């Protein structure tokens, strides 16, 4: 899932300082699960901002609400009134939610309350680790199920590099060396020969390097005949 982290409240306060009516919008999806932007965080943020405003002697109207999924237009549409009433939207969702609102209401200023960080896995309650970079060409079947692109600091295809120290990464000795882990996993699976092959340069054009990606499932799309009338199409 997408893992995000709340920005320091001071930074958020600065972003919303110029505005009177602030609509704080959380999301019940990934960012709630990673404890960054669910209802609890939204309420606490509104409350903390209230205290900050009391301390600085100003009034600011903070309206907190939470959507099922902020990255989908239908859910955003449900709170349109409150979005339109506000001077600024403080999105407590990943950047996808923030941009969805921004794209739907281009005249509205949207500020991010969270730093969208990683495609992560909850290793334990409160700990998430990065395991995918979305390169668009998954090869983990050849690497023992461990992604070297995300889990090696140098995204090496022919690791481990000379910095692999006791199975740890030279960049952060608290983290596992991905290629060491791949070696151990392949050994366990009796497939060490996969370590022997020279992996040629990766074709990065399936990743962000190929430009912004749009995924289309033709059979899932609605034909113009199927599409309902919407405001945009008028």
């Amino acid at each position, binding site marked *: 899932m997408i893992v995000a982290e709340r920005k320091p409240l001071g930074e958020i306060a600065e972003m919303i300082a110029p505005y009177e009516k602030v609509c704080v919008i959380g999301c019940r999806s990934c960012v709630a699960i990673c404890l960054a932007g*669910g209802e609890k965080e939204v*309420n606490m943020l509104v409350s903390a901002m209230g205290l900050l405003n009391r301390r600085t002697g100003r009034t600011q109207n903070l309206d907190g609400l939470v959507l099922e999924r902020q990255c989908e237009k239908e859910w955003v549409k449900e709170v349109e009134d409150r979005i339109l009433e506000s001077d600024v939207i403080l999105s407590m969702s990943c950047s996808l939610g923030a941009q969805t609102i921004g794209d739907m209401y281009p005249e509205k200023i949207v500020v991010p309350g969270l730093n969208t960080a990683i495609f992560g896995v909850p290793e334990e*309650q409160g700990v998430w680790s990065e395991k995918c970079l979305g390169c668009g060409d998954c090869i983990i079947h050849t690497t023992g199920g461990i992604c070297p692109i995300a889990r090696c600091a140098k995204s090496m295809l022919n690791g481990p590099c000379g910095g692999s120290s006791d199975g740890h990464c030279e960049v952060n000795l608290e983290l596992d060396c991905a290629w060491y882990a791949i070696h151990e996993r392949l050994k366990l699976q009796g497939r060490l020969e996969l370590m022997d092959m020279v992996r040629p340069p990766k074709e990065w054009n399936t990743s962000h390097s190929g430009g912004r990606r749009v995924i289309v499932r033709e059979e899932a799309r609605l034909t113009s005949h199927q599409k309902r009338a919407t405001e945009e199409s008028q």
Partner: protein
Amino acid sequence: MNRGTQVVICRVCSEGAGLLDVDKLARVASDAPGVCSTVVVERACNKKTVLEIVDDAMAKEADRLLVAPCSKKEISPALFQTYAKKAKMNEFLMEAVDIIGEVTLPHRDDPTRVQPKAEAKLRSAIVRINMLEPLQRTEERMRTSNVVVIGAGAAGIEAASVASAFGLHTVIIEKSEKKIDAPGVVMPKSRLISAKGHAGNYILTIEVGEKRETLECAAIVVASGGDWREAKGPIVDELQVAKPLHHLEQEIGEGRLPGGAIIILDTPDPKGIRTPAQDFMWEEALHCATHIRRKSPTTEVYLVFQEMRAMGLAEFDYKEASELGVKFIRYDSKKPPKVDTKNGTRLIVTDMAQEETLSLAFDTLYYASVAPNPDNAAIAVALRIPISSSGGIRRGSIQRGPVATPRPGIFVCGTAKFPKSREVARLEGKAAGLMAAQFAAAGKWEFGGSVAEVTSDKCSACLTCVRTCPYEAPFIGIAGKAEIAIQMCQGCGICAGICPSKAIELHNYTDDQLSAETAAYLGGDF
């Protein structure tokens, strides 16, 4: 639903300290929203008075009751019972506000603030009572009153005996083949595999020899003991002449005395895992040492311990041991003793008191130490009870009793928790047997009331509650959303406090209720 609150103010208790204006308190109550009746009585605990105010409550159609100024513990239970019976009032809608305890008594030195604070406290209590929900408690019949005891050591046998004397059927699960003399059924060569169910109705899967059996029980006593196998720690592994202390006890019991110098050492490092000082061997070690010196005054006996405390009557043993010339050497756990490898019958140890390094020649070394039972982890996993960092079964809060685990109906005693002297283990076994028996004999398990509930629409199925609840009450249900198994819920509200989607509320301690009560209390200016 919320028909109205009757506020009963008791004059005797209120005026006791002469700091409260009862009539003013009554006016505060009657002015408060939701209050349909305010009654000032001389003594609320008086039986006749109770009947009068119940009549008033019924006449005013009050569905909730607030009594001031003492705590629910101090009010005659008859008052609430009569209400519940006559006025059919829900037990969760009857509360007391402890103005004496919270205001009058602790602020006698600041009398001007007593009245306004009491008023604010009363107002906040009224806000709270108006928001309370009528909850129900449910009970479940226990299908059996059997008590299962895991482990047939000193503590386990004692537990089974006590429970059996209580008239309950007991089953002891024992992993060894040793012959056990204990009441009820003893299942040798058996071990616990898994457990289902909850307090009062546990269903255990037991492996007996090759077979698996299912065992239903109302309560469980864990008396798994320690790891009494013989190889212990690096020092001992190096030595042929090292034996566990119970060998010495056995020899003494058979009337034999070991020859040559003897060291009794609390191995600091059983199996390479550092364990805290072990108290359970202190008495045994003292006992053996005095016995040997008494019988054979020329035998050198050293007690090499990190710590040695003689408690209760053992103080006499300690005194006698000193008088008989037993040598006590205390060492720092950071500087554990070493065996002289060139001369395998010497122990090098630094005495903490003298700061002197000694080289002790000896003929036999007895180690007074026990590691936790390696089965504890599997038992803890099966029963869903916590394990301590030292590998013992962790008990719950002392308020639940000294032999209770955090899980209702499961008790733990003796060395399963941490090494205990045999005497203490037996006593704990008795206590655990008794608590388990009382629990099982109740025949029913009551639950519900102020428990947690999930609002499915808000739940993100993030598993935070599932991972955090100490009782494993939350689970992800078939709808893919969290649900609370109310038989397991103990009403702590940890899940409600941590839910990132604010999808869980604890009945009668909801966010709204707590915040409204707090705001009302803060509203008072004093």
